[in-house]
């Protein structure tokens, strides 16, 4: 088990290296720079700016120095926000995005698991159809349609919540619901499928035969196997929630890192773009690693493969 974790961990290092390198050169090879703007900047000032940020050095030099700083956890200065480092911006904005992501993931599981289990247990009854249709709505109504609609209904007409912002605890409700609902739908479908596979198996019949109560059969015996597809979905789901929050942060005007990333890409703020990409990639890869380990723990069969 320890070897498995170690191997997976070592594998992530070259992957991250490739991501850093690819993003670095992609960002540099595009037309337009951070100091391109409508009003012309005097050449001397431009020169000074470029010298200040090291942009006058050869590209490979810049790359090596970036890597060097990165190894010390230093993402460098922002090109668009004078006197602010990328680290400061990330420290400022990331907690908000993480909080939104955590709430959304909670919504996805708290809504998706019961729906899926219920649908599987009451297979082919109206309860199943109701649960499955709810899941279909979640998959087919995109967040950027659902979000504005919910704002329209609950914020503008009913006035239960603020239409935007991230100040009071109540401001968390609508964004997390919207972002989480889509993944709740997938979780519900996967749970239903996984549970149906398991409920057919012999050991479930054995459990019933020896007189275990129905709830014990479902929660003690079936759930462990039935949840496997959900666990493997959690990796991609977290990645999706992180990027999905870009749109949510725009819709609800939440001051998170996602919105900052989109703006920084438009502004060609090289270091901020790079820093955010590296951070997100690391987060997602780390979470996938955790998911892999949990999967092996839950399914001993995988250990021998």
């Amino acid at each position: 088990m320890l070897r498995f974790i170690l191997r997976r961990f070592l594998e992530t290092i070259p992957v991250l290296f490739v991501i850093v390198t690819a993003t670095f050169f992609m960002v540099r090879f595009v037309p337009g720079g951070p100091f391109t703007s409508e009003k012309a900047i005097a050449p001397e000032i431009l020169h000074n700016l470029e010298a200040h940020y090291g942009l006058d050095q050869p590209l490979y030099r810049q790359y090596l120095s970036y890597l060097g700083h990165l190894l010390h956890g230093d993402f460098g200065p922002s090109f668009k926000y004078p006197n602010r480092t990328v680290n400061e911006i990330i420290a400022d904005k990331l907690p908000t995005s993480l909080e939104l992501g955590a709430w959304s993931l909670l919504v996805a599981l708290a809504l998706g698991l019961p729906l899926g289990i219920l649908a599987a247990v009451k297979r082919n009854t109206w309860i199943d159809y109701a649960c499955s249709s709810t899941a279909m709505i979640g998959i087919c109504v995109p967040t950027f349609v659902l979000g504005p609609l919910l704002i329209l209904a609950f914020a503008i007409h009913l006035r239960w919540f603020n239409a935007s912002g991230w100040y009071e605890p109540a401001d968390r409700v609508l964004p997390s619901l919207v972002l989480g609902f889509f993944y709740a739908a997938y979780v519900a479908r996967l749970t239903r499928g996984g549970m149906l596979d398991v409920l057919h198996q012999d050991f479930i019949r054995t459990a019933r035969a020896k007189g275990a109560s129905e709830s014990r059969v479902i929660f003690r015996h079936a759930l462990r196997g039935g949840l496997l597809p959900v666990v493997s979905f959690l990796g991609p789901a977290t990645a999706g929630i992180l990027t999905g929050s870009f749109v949510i942060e725009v819709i609800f005007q939440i001051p998170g890192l996602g919105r900052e990333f989109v703006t920084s890409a438009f502004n060609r703020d090289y270091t901020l773009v790079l820093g955010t990409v590296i951070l997100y990639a690391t987060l997602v890869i780390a979470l996938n690693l955790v998911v892999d380990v949990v999967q092996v723990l839950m399914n001993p069969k995988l250990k021998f493969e």
Partner: protein
Amino acid sequence: MVSLSPSSLPAADVAADDLERGSSLWRDAWHRLRKNRLAVFGAFVLGVIVVACVAGPWFSPYAYNEIDLARTFRPPNAANWLGTDELGHDLLVRILCGGRISLLVGLVATAVALAIGVTWGAIAGYAGGRTDTVMMRIVDILYALPFTIFVILLMVFFGRNIVLLFVAIGAVEWLTMARIVRGQVLSVKKMEFIEAARALGLSRRRIIFRHIVPNILGPIIVYATLTIPAVMLLEAFLSFLGLGVQPPMSSWGVLIRDGAEKMEEFPWLLIFPGGIFSLTLFSLNFLGDGLRDALDVRSSKD
């Protein structure tokens, strides 16, 4: 299996054999699909939407870029069935024309994903051994990356042209297809007719694309149908962020974004594009699920 007469073993008979089994498989699937009411409904709605988007604008009295400042922000009425926007554009025509782009992106980007995924998966599955391990490990690693971020970067940096959009989205969505195709190839490649093809001395390339791929068309079709809505969702997502298709072209994602800005006073600008888009996704998903059940494709990735 139909027995082959010993004198005529060559490829023609092998192919005829496939065809015969194939046609009955397809006919069975067709019967099962027609019994699935949701799938039939999905196919019907989808057909209506496609026909309306392709042919509808020709029958409309309005051009999609026709500006009429005398009738801005009209709610739905007899002249403009779905109302008008801030420049007096007829919303119905704009939705139909935007639908052309959205559907086109869905189809072309799925084709790109299909081409990459099928080739990758078929080669990995057929080659086996080390090649297979390395190729699928690459897929695993790519799976773990937040790819949407790279699509966003590509679209910001390299201008937002539609060809790049196709390629960028296609390049993200091929991974599942590769996994499915590989799994199918693994099970097909051990069958006798592949051995026969190999005995005849056919090239690898020919065996893969002429003999194996046609036999795994079922799963490919199913996942292609399910990839289209995913692709359309990604396109709308990008358009919503202002990174999709650019004016004067428009897509459902663009309309939804414009509508969301003005929904407070003019809710129809959000509700109709959002509704049509969701309805299309519904239809595609119902049809895809129906096809999966009809063709009896297992949903697991192996």
